[in-house]
């Protein structure tokens, strides 16, 4: 799975996700990447989210929307909300994966409960950071 979240000069957030799903999946299986609120979500009032991992669990936990909901209704920061969704909801269901979530102030949360996740980000000055492993 691949995904991206962005914040433009007008303060607008967007999120996108694209995937081939699970190796050896049953034909016709649809994962969270195609389900709004499960693997992808964006709302200028809260954050933009893209996820990767075991899609069935992200669907059951409605993980992407939960991050936005925790920010909206519980006033959590994007980092707190993303951590709660991955280490709480997703892990609680037995799922594994990760998330990138960007709020309207340009604060980024990168959370995963696996050994690694391919990831990177660029700041407003064009400085690029790329990471792969947990450390």
């Amino acid at each position, binding site marked *: *799975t*691949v*995904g*991206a979240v*962005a*914040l*433009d*000069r*007008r303060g*607008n*957030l*967007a999120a*996108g*996700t*694209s*995937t*081939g*799903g*699970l*190796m*050896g*999946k049953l*034909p*016709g299986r*649809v994962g969270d*990447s*195609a*389900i*709004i609120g499960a693997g*992808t979500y*964006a*709302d200028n009032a809260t954050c*933009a989210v893209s996820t*990767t*991992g*075991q899609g*069935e*669990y992200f669907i059951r936990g409605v993980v992407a929307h939960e991050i936005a909901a925790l920010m909206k209704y519980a006033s959590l920061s994007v980092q707190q909300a993303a951590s709660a969704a991955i280490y709480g909801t997703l892990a609680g269901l037995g*799922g594994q*994966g*990760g998330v990138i979530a*960007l709020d309207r*102030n340009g*604060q980024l949360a990168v959370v*995963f409960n*696996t*050994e*690694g*996740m*391919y*990831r*990177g*980000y*660029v*700041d407003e*000055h*064009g400085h*690029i950071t790329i990471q*792969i*492993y947990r450390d």
Partner: protein
Amino acid sequence: VRIVLAIHGGAGTITRAQMTPEREQQYREALRQALQEGYAVLQAGGSSLDAVVAAIRVLEDSPLFNAGRGAVLNRDGVAELDATIMDGRTLKAGAVAGVQTVKNPILLARRVMEATPHVLLIGRAAEAFAQEQGLEIVPNEYFIVPERRLQLQRLREQGIGIVPEEASSTYG
């Protein structure tokens, strides 16, 4: 300092012990290229939607990631692709699932969002819509790289279940 664009590939059992320096460099270059393409859009005053699409297209075209070319295969050895996009300003969204011939599913998801009253199109109907919209169509073989064929073969040989509860590994 504000972050303006972030991207991800798959999450899973990714450790230094499993990665050669050459392979790691390939991943880093692909991720860097995706960030540069997306950032260039934002720097030119483009929208966050355009930046997201620009970054994801790079990753879909790279054989390293499980999306577009390089996608994993279903039980029948076919690449079936899903993609979604969402606009935080309007809460509009577009998605496609189970497409097998659309080169860049993220472009199709965006057309669903912008050119239909719907959110999700699937399978053959989604592919017919892609043709109507003039998107690039490719044979399914375009998406399939030798490494994925081998992975599916190993999966079959090991008799590993395909539902998450039974799988010993995932591919994001």
